[in-house]
């Protein structure tokens, strides 16, 4: 009887996940692994390479043909460049050191619905061309550690991560256990009812409902399946996506449509929380211990020295 219940549970579970996965055939930007060799450099800043992938984090394929999709690049000053993509990979040369925000838009009509697939990626360029950014070099990068998080006007539908990332250890990152708050915008205004689906590299998925204020936030989970090879600094991918349907109708590339289906994804990478490896209490204990030992040592050393003059005839009053 028990086993039967268990089986049912498993079945249900499977069904649920499968249904979710099928619902989440999303498109996402992925930064290509840097190849040591044959790196194209234009005035000292290496070329960055990205590809569009469709599917889930653990089961996906790279898109061969990107023609028709548009790339928006927003730099730290909010300057926006627009590129029409061709070929199979996205290449882009960041001009200077700091954060870049990449957006890709791809439209296609499929049996009467217009699929608007969007993805955005944050990228931090460690390198850069001094001639473009010497001012920042002189002033210092102290204020560039935050993302700009206004919606991009070109995009009708947009998912935005609200968290401004501090330089926790100077080079910034997200950690398991951090709260990641998101907002969903449609044509500039906030949507209150769009759920968020989250997927981890390890395969764990979840759907999060928005709060009344319209922020959808969740705690970045720690991957328990992750193969822990003593590499405590390993980072893991996380794909956040939201989709939204409207009954707009129109014509796109000659095909008419009566529905529009928006999806937007944000691939994030996060590291294991330092908190797991940090001990505050021990730290304070050490400090206090050291202080005690040191001061006691001093005290006795001094008493030994001053014995000769411990006369009552001196008086600090």
């Amino acid at each position: 009887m028990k086993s039967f219940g268990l089986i049912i549970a498993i079945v249900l579970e499977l069904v649920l996940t499968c249904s979710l996965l099928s619902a989440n055939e999303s498109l996402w930007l992925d930064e290509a692994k840097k190849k040591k060799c044959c790196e194209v450099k234009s005035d000292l800043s290496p070329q960055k390479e990205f590809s569009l992938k469709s599917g889930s984090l653990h089961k996906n394929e790279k898109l061969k043909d990107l023609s028709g999709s548009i790339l928006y690049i927003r730099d730290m000053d909010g300057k926006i460049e627009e590129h029409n993509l061709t070929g199979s990979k996205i290449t882009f040369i960041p001009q200077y050191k700091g954060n870049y925000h990449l957006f890709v838009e791809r439209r296609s009509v499929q049996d009467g619905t217009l699929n608007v697939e969007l993805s955005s990626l944050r990228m931090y360029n460690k390198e850069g061309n001094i001639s473009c950014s010497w001012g920042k070099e002189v002033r210092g990068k102290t204020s560039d550690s935050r993302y700009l998080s206004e919606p991009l006007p070109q995009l009708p539908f947009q998912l935005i991560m609200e968290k401004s990332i501090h330089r926790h250890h100077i080079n910034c990152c997200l950690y398991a256990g951090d709260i990641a708050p998101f907002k969903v915008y449609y044509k500039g205004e906030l949507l209150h009812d769009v759920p968020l689906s989250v997927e981890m590299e390890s395969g764990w998925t979840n759907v999060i409902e928005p709060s009344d204020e319209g922020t959808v936030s969740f705690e970045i989970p720690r991957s328990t399946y992750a193969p822990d090879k003593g590499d405590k600094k390993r980072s893991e991918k996380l794909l956040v996506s939201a989709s939204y349907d409207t009954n707009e109708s129109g014509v796109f590339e000659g095909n008419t449509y009566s529905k529009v289906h928006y999806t937007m994804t944000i691939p994030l990478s996060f590291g294991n929380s330092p908190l797991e490896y940090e001990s505050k209490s021990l730290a304070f204990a050490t400090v206090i211990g050291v202080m005690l030992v040191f001061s006691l040592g001093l005290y006795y050393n001094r008493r030994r020295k001053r014995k000769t003059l411990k006369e009552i005839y001196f008086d600090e009053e």
Partner: protein
Amino acid sequence: MTKNKFSLRRSVNNMNLVRFRFWFQIAAFALIVYGGWAGIDLGDKLPTFACVFSSDASGGKCYVGELQHDLRHTFEMMAGYAGYAFLISLGMFIVWFWVLNKGWCGFVCPLGTMQDWLTMLREKSKIRFSEYSWANRKKIKSIKYILLFLMLLLPVMVANSVFGAPKLPSGLAMPFCDICPGRMMIPAFTGDFNQFYIDFSTKTDLVMAVLGMIMTGLFLVGSFVKKRFFCYFCPMAALQYIFSKPALLKLYKDGAKCTKCGDCYHACDMDILEIADDVTTKNMVTEDCTLCLKCVAACPEEGCLEANFMGATIFESTKEGFVLRMAMDQHKESHAH
């Protein structure tokens, strides 16, 4: 030698330096530690301990942090943009530094200010300060240079394999920040105690974190019993001293007027013997000097010591000023018998 009764110079020379410095340091402390909240941001090339780790609050950042960060690059990067970046940062640091010279230590450095506060606490509680023996005093001079050297070398060795040696673990990317008590203390003043941690993630992190905590403990007790305890070992001081010669603010001594009475040495928090015994050198900004100007305030000889900014005397030792500062300027009838 006739003195105009109400000249500005005279009133400056008669000022109570201790009080002036106390308030100046508080102001500087507020600017550096809390300035960020007021939207002040002096960049991250400051030649003083404005901690990189107290994220939003600080009104500027310490160059030592930036320096280590800049050095953590592969050689080919250093050959290119990173090299430029490094040079520009360094240049900026030097420009900042030249304004106040070591005055950054004596008047601005928040860590120094904390130590002075601890000293005041000690003085109030009537506990005698400690001193190094002259021999040890000499010995420890080299420590700050060693720290500086390591601070410069380790980040490079993290990014590159130097002379075929294996790359160092990334835990050593910011070796000095790891052990700098400023990292714990300055954020702590903004209510952020997150820097007090021991990191078990890797062995290096563990060691460095523990070192950091130990240093913090030593710092607190040490600077309670010894004036400016930490400044004796400060690699920033070493780094600054390299560029100290052409700086604008100077401490000059007229050896001919010196009687070697040692009052200046007695006042000096850094126990710099030269200030009293060296009667030939003019520029008295030595490697350990913090330009706190206490020596000038304690000098009873007319115009023997002076603080000089771009050739203009701004604060000079005078008999009158000395007497006022020591509150010896009026006669109290002999105390009750």
